[in-house]
């Protein structure tokens, strides 16, 4: 029984790149032969259950484990005190400033709980049921402390998330175009616009989200002698291995980390978790294999969350809508701890708020803050969706203020295709792009003009269901990342990726990649790349990843980096194979290497019909009977590629929303997007990434939001209340692409994993606002629930006929805005 490998129609049959290959990954997944971590059973394996704090902030005064220890099947009950010397810490790898305030994050807490759900004790039992039965038998005495839950409140330092640190302010980070020489002075630009231009001031809320990958996290640890094997549902087996070694003292060489089939991540599995470290510590202490699999409720409670920012934005422009300056002031809620790259996530927005627009002056300020809630880290897009939302909302507000179509204001201000490469006011150099082409195509696919006409009709008819059109002409920076830039940002590692290619004597090819997939389709895409590069059959390429014993070097999968960084490493390894094979082929063909040309998998002697297929060279190399003097008998090659730049995909997303003004309910009428992700290796995979990304972005706009009550209890603690959309809540999308090849990698590819999510959120919200703007509504807080939409309509004052609503300046009445409070940059914070 095999899945078919036939393909859809293809334009260039001789090339694999560009073909809509069906996935090699699918067979085991559609037949139930998957290898997810929780599927594993090892002989003698114990099952763990976590005793978690119900309180958001508390001191632990005592833990009585006697009753639990006596419960049926229970082998051990382990507290933080018991494993304090071996449990390590959940480290922050990116202190954004040298004086960042970073609380120590113990996997199993000892005496201080900083958010609900923290692990207080671990039960090991013969069965999972027995382990869970014993949870309620552990008697923990807590002394509750006041919890700080709101980031703006936290900035006052009146209630402290970590009393011993003396402050909730973790770090302040600034990028100023005048100071770094990449642009003008933003305060001057704003001051000038206040007298003779336009100033738009808004405060937007980026609500807290939960990544909500479908596979709950699971870890199996097998201690064998002094070696330790860790299987985990992680995006980052290599980073996990490094951080286990770095924080527990276990020799890295004794550690093997395996990410088997991983059921989605979206940044949510870009972490080293308390659960992983606790499982490792308990397995080491007991000398037995141990498994811990979280429930969904535990996952929502204790896995890291995403977003959670307040964005105060000031945009200045000429009266005609030409932008002159942008000032960004962020408050980023990190939750209780600074996660592995938690502090850095909002900072990634620094290069993205200016987006595709030619701002002459720019300033980005970010204050990170600690609260008694779940920690916050990467979630699909990580820093860029927040920025894109802010700027794309602001461009719509500017268009409304100037009184032009939102696409027009964008065109007036965007980088034209002739201007690439273009160095932005933030200091990034965009290598390629064509915003005009993507926009023109999207408008046509969407039927923009017809929808605008319908919108006008429905406005005139006072239709209770109004139509709105939302625009998002996004770009993003991905392909993390040039190591030198990461170094300059105080990031704790590099951004390279590694690949190895092994030429097997039977003509098969093994590709080892350090980029560990969890649904993206690396196996298929890498096969296509290598098939073209080495001229071998797609079917003959096998891709190995996700096991540090097999793929020892890697930086893993996140930040839409796999193809642009990891794929380039594969290309370079393949090129090295060819170089090595060429020497041997020349020897076997008794020709000069200079006279050989490599094409279609064959070394041919120029001007003759003599040649050798690369597989033949591989076999001859394996035999090693007849090699040139001094040449090693191996074609196998490694490449470690450090990117020279980020990747800048872009696109134009257009969304039509219908808004029922009687109930506040919204429904999506249509969605069309044209993305430019450079050269496409597999259009099927690209479409899949876009579709999935779109729904996550749309979902932020409409459905999702992590909510805590006043005690710090997560109210949206199950899938009943954390409302993910189903097939019945979503629509089919119109997607297409334009291609502006990247100039910074061999294949011309750009990242695609996060694009849909980054683009979609502002497109949806802009559409809802567009539907309601005649009522004087200029913002609705996300998720735009029916109740919020309805409340906005109720509180709106309809302006007199023909009179446009003046844009308010940090309007306290607006539903999206807390009382604005002081500027975080005033008085030189920190």
């Amino acid at each position: 029984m095999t899945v078919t490998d036939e393909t859809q129609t293809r334009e260039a049959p001789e090339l694999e790149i560009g073909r809509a290959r069906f996935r090699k990954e699918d067979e085991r997944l559609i037949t139930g032969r998957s290898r997810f971590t929780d599927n594993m059973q090892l002989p003698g394996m114990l099952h763990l259950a976590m005793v978690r704090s119900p309180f958001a902030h508390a001191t632990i005064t005592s833990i009585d484990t006697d009753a639990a220890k006596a419960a049926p099947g229970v082998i051990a009950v382990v507290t933080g005190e018991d494993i304090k010397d071996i449990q390590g810490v959940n480290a922050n790898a990116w202190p954004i400033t040298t004086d960042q305030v970073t609380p120590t994050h113990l996997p199993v807490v000892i005496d201080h709980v900083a958010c609900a759900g923290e692990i207080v004790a671990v039960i090991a039992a013969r069965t999972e049921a027995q382990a869970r039965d014993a949870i309620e038998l552990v008697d923990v005495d807590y002394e509750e402390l006041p919890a700080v839950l709101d980031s703006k409140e936290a900035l006052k330092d009146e209630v402290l998330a970590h009393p011993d640190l003396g402050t909730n302010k973790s770090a302040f980070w600034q990028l100023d175009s005048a100071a770094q020489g990449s642009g003008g002075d933003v305060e001057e630009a704003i001051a000038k616009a206040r007298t003779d231009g336009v100033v738009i001031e808004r405060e937007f809320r980026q609500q807290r989200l939960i990544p909500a990958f479908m596979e709950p996290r699971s870890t199996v640890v097998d201690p064998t002698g002094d070696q330790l094997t860790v299987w985990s549902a992680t995006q980052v087996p290599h980073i996990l291995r490094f951080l286990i070694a770095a924080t527990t003292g276990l020799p890295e060489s004794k550690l093997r980390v395996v990410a088997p089939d991983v059921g989605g991540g979206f940044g949510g599995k870009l972490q080293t978790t308390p659960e992983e470290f606790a499982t490792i510590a308990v397995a080491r202490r007991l000398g037995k294999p141990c498994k811990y699999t979280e429930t969904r409720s535990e996952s929502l409670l204790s896995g890291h969350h995403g977003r959670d920012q307040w964005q105060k934005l000031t945009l200045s422009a000429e009266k005609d809508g030409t932008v002159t300056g942008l000032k960004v002031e962020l408050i980023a809620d990190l939750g209780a701890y600074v996660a592995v790259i938690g502090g850095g996530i909002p900072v990634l927005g620094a290069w993205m708020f200016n987006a595709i627009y030619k701002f002459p002056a720019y300033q980005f300020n970010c204050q990170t803050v600690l609260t008694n809630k779940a920690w916050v880290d990467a979630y699909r897009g990580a820093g860029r969706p927040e920025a894109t939302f802010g700027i794309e909302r602001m461009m719509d507000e500017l268009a409304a203020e100037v009184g032009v179509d939102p696409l027009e204001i964008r065109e007036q201000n965007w980088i034209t295709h002739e201007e690439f490469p273009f160095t932005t006011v933030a200091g990034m150099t965009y290598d390629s792009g064509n915003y005009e082409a993507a926009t023109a195509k999207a408008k046509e696919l969407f039927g923009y003009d017809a929808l605008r006409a319908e919108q006008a009709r429905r406005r005139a008819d006072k239709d209770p269901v109004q139509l709105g059109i939302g625009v998002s002409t996004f770009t993003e920076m991905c392909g993390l990342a040039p190591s030198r830039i990461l170094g300059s940002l105080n990031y704790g590692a590099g951004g390279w990726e590694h690949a190895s290619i092994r030429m097997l004597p039977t003509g098969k090819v093994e590709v080892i990649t350090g980029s560990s997939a969890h649904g993206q389709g690396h196996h298929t895409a890498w096969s296509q790349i290598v098939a073209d590069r080495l001229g071998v059959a797609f079917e003959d390429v096998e891709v190995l990843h996700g096991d540090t014993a097999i793929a020892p070097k890697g930086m893993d999968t996140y930040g839409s980096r796999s193809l642009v960084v990891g794929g380039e490493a594969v290309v370079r390894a393949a090129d090295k194979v060819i170089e090595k094979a060429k020497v041997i082929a020349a020897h076997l063909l008794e020709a000069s290497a200079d006279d050989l040309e490599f094409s279609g998998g064959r070394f041919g002697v120029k001007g003759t019909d003599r040649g050798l297929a690369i597989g033949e060279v591989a076999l001859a190399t394996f035999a090693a009977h007849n090699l040139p003097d001094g040449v090693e008998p191996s074609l196998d090659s490694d490449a470690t590629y450090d990117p020279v730049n980020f990747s800048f995909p872009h696109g134009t997303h257009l969304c039509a929303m219908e808004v029922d003004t009687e109930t506040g309910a919204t429904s999506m009428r249509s969605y069309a997007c044209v993305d430019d992700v450079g050269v496409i290796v597999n259009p099927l995979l690209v479409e899949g990434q876009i579709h999935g990304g779109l729904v996550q972005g749309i979902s932020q706009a409409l459905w999702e939001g992590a909510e805590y009550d006043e005690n710090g209890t997560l109210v949206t603690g199950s899938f009943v209340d954390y409302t993910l959309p189903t097939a019945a809540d979503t629509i089919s999308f119109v997607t297409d692409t334009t291609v502006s090849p990247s100039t910074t990698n061999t294949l011309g590819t750009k990242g695609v994993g996060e694009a849909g999510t980054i683009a979609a959120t502002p497109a949806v919200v802009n559409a809802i606002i567009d539907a309601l703007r005649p009522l004087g509504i200029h913002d609705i807080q996300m998720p735009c629930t029916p109740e919020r939409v309805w409340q906005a309509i109720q509180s709106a004052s309809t302006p007199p006929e023909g009179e446009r609503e003046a844009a308010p300046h940090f309007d306290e009445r607006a539903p999206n805005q807390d009382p604005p409070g002081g500027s975080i940059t005033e008085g030189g914070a920190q």
Partner: protein
Amino acid sequence: MIPASFDYLAPATAAEALAALAEHGDDAKVLAGGQSLLPILRMRLNAPEVVIDLGKIPELQGISEDGDHLVIGAMTTYAAVLASEAVSTHAALLSKAVATVADPQIRHRGTVGGALVHADPAGDVGAPVLALGAELVIAGSDGTTRTVTAEDFFEDLFTTAVGEDELLTQIRIPKHTGWGAHYEKFVRVSHQWSIVAIAATVRVEDGAIAEARVGLTNMGATPLRVAGVEAALVGQPPTDEAVRAAVASIADDTNPPSDLNGDSGYRKHLATVLARRAVLAAAGA
């Protein structure tokens, strides 16, 4: 994800089940379709010592007609209700409401009686059963049977007239043959419990509403029926304007909950809009 331990009983008759209930009292929980009970047990929000499964009692299942009544066994699944032509003909409102319950998998297992006794105010079966003027047949462990009206059946949040040693056995619904029906359910995502829903069934005669029955879901601790609105609808043409006026007071005496999906005031507003839509749809307008 794993319930606490319990003993399991699967009686073959209602009498056996009642005897077991009498024996175990409040240590026991009755398992009907289990689609609400099992999540509660898995999350350990309840930990009964005994679970009495009614799934092996054929007499509690099935749909039949008894003169001018439709008789639905308490253990009849949503899927069976949906598949029943008798229900769609004589109690279309119930068919329409049941079609919106949760999702297909849940509807394959969940039972009408289980939902009624669970009495979640956001459940979709209570309002139509109430609006249709159903009677609920309750059997006691002493061998007696009593019948209560739907009005008397729903007592409070998750509380019904069914006592600890009793079982709901049948739902008797007066036939509403030829009545139009609509269940207008308002949710943010499709698999959600009702934020608010309106169950409406009307008989239209000579271009006017001759009779109307309207029930409310999640507008209070129990499903509600609004006699005043039903009366106001009688004689009205099924037009937007007339129905709007007739249902305007529908939320006046309600006390709906406030939660993440909407506060009480918003729910009251929703009820008036949804009621108009439900009645108009039921009237085929």
